[in-house]
């Protein structure tokens, strides 16, 4: 043990966490599926010509009025939808749009929520009351209703939709951060930091924040799935800002009128939304297992 360097220890820990994660094979399935989605996002972001796509941001360039509705075939592996759009390329484009809009929403919601919950619990008193009542206000308005309200008041574009989703999802993280800060606040670590004269800001940044954020990391994948679902839902019920953005929910709504003659036009985009949501839920489950201190201690005892 004495010869073990700090790096081998970290490598050992990472391999332990990974083994806990893949102890349920379904978690691994979720991870592999998500890696495909991320690879698609990266390819379309940096070199879309690799898959023969020249304009990953628009849908109208895919209109092909001579084709009509074609079932899945060799030329069109996923078939075509309304206006002769090739579903394969449309779905590849839409995955990137959904993933790229959802990631900043999750990160901002987690950071904002953690910040609000942390300082509310740390300073306490009337400050805590005001911040948490404010959080309750946004928690009380269902996310679709919030998106509609802000869209109506400000403007219906993707930035406003993303910001509304940040506002809708931060209360969850604020509640987590508040409860874990209340525990850490009176720990020896924080008390000794204060006793050597650290400022509140220093204590919060160096001691409270890393502990609080690590306890809500397990929620990231689950929120990611919810946000992707929210984007698809908003576009599906006709609140998309414009008709030219390839988005999975919007593609689903395209085929809806032809559900009786061309079910694939609805089922294929929906299948990809479901795949994204389910694999993110699987990863979320795996992360909860992996970061659960009890599971980790059981595995450590098994291995040492």
């Amino acid at each position, binding site marked *: 043990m004495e010869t073990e360097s700090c790096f081998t220890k970290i490598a050992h820990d990472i391999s332990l966490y990974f083994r806990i994660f893949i102890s349920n094979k379904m978690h691994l399935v979720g991870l592999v599926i998500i890696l495909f989605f991320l690879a698609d996002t990266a390819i379309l972001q940096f070199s879309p010509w690799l898959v023969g796509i020249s304009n990953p941001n628009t849908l109208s360039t895919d209109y092909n009025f001579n084709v009509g509705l074609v079932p899945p075939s060799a030329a069109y592996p996923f078939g075509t939808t309304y206006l002769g759009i090739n579903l394969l390329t449309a779905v590849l484009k839409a995955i990137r749009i959904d993933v790229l809009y959802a990631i900043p929403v999750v990160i901002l919601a987690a950071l904002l929520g953690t910040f609000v919950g942390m300082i509310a619990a740390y300073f306490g008193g009337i400050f805590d009351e005001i911040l948490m009542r404010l959080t309750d206000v946004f928690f009380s308005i269902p996310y679709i209703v919030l998106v509609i309200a802000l869209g109506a008041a400000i403007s219906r574009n993707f930035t406003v939709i993303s910001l509304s989703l940040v506002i809708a999802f931060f209360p969850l993280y604020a509640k987590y951060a508040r409860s874990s800060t209340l525990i850490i606040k009176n720990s020896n670590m924080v008390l000794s930091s204060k006793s050597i004269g650290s400022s509140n800001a220093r204590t919060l940044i160096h001691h409270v924040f890393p502990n609080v954020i690590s306890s809500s990391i397990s929620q990231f994948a689950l929120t990611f799935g919810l946000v992707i679902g929210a984007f698809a839902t908003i576009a599906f019920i006709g609140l998309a800002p414009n008709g030219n953005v390839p988005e999975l929910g919007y593609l689903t709504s395209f085929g809806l009128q032809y559900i009786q003659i061309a079910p694939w036009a609805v089922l294929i985009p929906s299948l990809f939304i479901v795949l994204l949501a389910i694999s993110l*839920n699987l990863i979320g489950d795996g992360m909860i297992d992996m970061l659960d201190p009890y599971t980790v201690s059981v595995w450590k005892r098994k291995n040492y």
Partner: protein
Amino acid sequence: MSLSHYIIKRLIIAVPTLIGITLFIFLLYYIIGGLHSNFLVAYGSWLSSLFSGKSQIVNTNVYKGSISSAIALFLPNTLMLSIFAAVLIWFIGTYLGVFSARHKDSAADLTIKAASFYLYAAPIFIVAIVLIILFGVYLKILPFSGEINPLLMVGIAWFSDGISYPTHILLIDALIHGNFVIAWNAFLSLILPALSLALAFIAGVIIMLRNSMISVLNQNFITGARGKGLSERYIVRRHALRNAIFQPATFFAYTISGLLSGEVVIETIFNYPGMGYFLTQSLINNQLVAVLDSVLIFGIIFVSATILLDIFYAVIDPRVRF
């Protein structure tokens, strides 16, 4: 502290949230309207106009008239759909959750577990699409438009005069007037929207109840009850379920927000004449005042539903001490 004190305390806690919601909505008005008077003065006069019931006219494809009568028309339908969905969630969820826990690791349990996981993860509109394709398009056994066939309503006197249509819920009004054909059709067109709304939450209740039920069934007092020779059915109902139910009950309270979001989505997909449908129609027709008033209604529904559930848990859970 008695129960009535608890109720009063709970109502007082809700007041700042309600004030916060009205402030937020008024802030949006302020942004749209570009009102030039002092913010607080304008807020005060807006609030008093809300209480006095003065309301503006809304003009959409589905409704023309004052916003307050629109709310009177659409809100009861939303409540009807929510209550129907809540009943489905509670009964199907607890039944299948208990069944799954009692037959742990059987084929039926594994099927229920996998199905719940997928239903819980998938967005609600996809569940609705699959149900529409299955029951509406292929099997053709259930209607998938929330409004009843207009041909049925021709010549029905109480439907058009507006006075003998007291609740605005077609199902209940048809029952009051003894018109069972219309009531039956109204009931049929309620099934798919309610089921699509309920399935994801049924899945959530099953997952929660299965886990807590399995851990309760392994506890000593259950073994003791078995040792006394009580029937398994009695043990599950009277001993285990009463201890296992609180975790899913709390989950249920946390999902009200999700349920209301789902309500907007489902009403829009099925053209069901509720508040969510009114909200999206107002947005599409650029009726901003109607949009913000509906947002206020949704906030009020959420706050009142949480208060009611909290009081309900205080009554049923002996561990809650006020």
